[in-house]
């Protein structure tokens, strides 16, 4: 009788272990799905360059390494003089040049028929 009870206990313990395992997997799946949904809906997916397919090329990595970060920040306090503003404009000019150095971002002609290899419509064919 004792032996049967012991066997039943063991069986129940094994079943509970399986249930625990399945529960953990289910929770992991649900939380991962929620995370992915947030990642997608927030738009972070579109700027995540470590995403497969977006991985930077070797040259780009070198470029990034070459770019030295200037941690200049205009002070919120202190007297304002022409010299201070001159320095402000010089530093702002660095940022402006970096923006202008990016040639034609989101240029609309990139998606033109011509660029995508779609021929002009032939008359009477539409």
């Amino acid at each position: 009788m004792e032996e049967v009870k012991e066997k039943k206990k063991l069986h129940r313990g094994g079943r509970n272990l399986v249930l625990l395992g399945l529960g953990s997997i289910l929770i992991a799946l649900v939380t991962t799905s929620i995370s992915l949904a947030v990642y997608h809906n927030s738009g972070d997916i579109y700027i995540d360059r470590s995403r497969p397919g977006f991985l930077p090329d070797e040259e780009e990595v070198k470029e990034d390494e070459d770019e030295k970060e200037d941690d200049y920040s205009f002070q919120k306090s202190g007297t304002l003089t022409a010299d201070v503003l001159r320095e402000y404009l010089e530093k702002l000019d660095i940022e402006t040049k970096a923006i202008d150095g990016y040639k034609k971002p989101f240029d609309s002609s990139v998606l033109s028929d011509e660029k995508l290899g779609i021929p002009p419509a032939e008359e009477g064919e539409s």
Partner: protein
Amino acid sequence: MRRFLVVFAILVVSLMTLPVSAIAKNQEEAISDHCESIRNSLKTIQKNDAKARVHLGGRYETILSRFLVPLNVRLVENNLPSADLVENQNDFADTKVVFTNDYIEYQQNLEELVAMDCKNQPAEFYEKLVKVRQKRKTMEQDVMKMRTLITKQINAVNNLMSKVK
């Protein structure tokens, strides 16, 4: 007479609801034939756009948080508040948000376009392409507006320089 009118109305409604193809037959064929190469081009564009978004977004954030906001705070502290500079800071912050949201919308549409079956559905593919072009045009305008606001800031600070010692 009444029967004629009913038949006529049905005909008109049927004609109006017929799908109108905005694409010519030769274009449909070209899209089908070169589907893979068009999709590859779109993927390259997508990748370059992500790079542009990260690059520009970072610069815009730097300009806002390290130049525009601190200058206005310092101007107030020096009893020299400038309505133009405050307005420019607000416009810049607002346009930056618009730029971010427009980019998400544009990329969602571009991603849907890349996933489409252009081989078997060239007309639908082209229709989506036209939509993506409009979204991209909006992005181009956002970037131009941000650049205009930077120029406005530079001009305003130049004016300010003549007012201080």
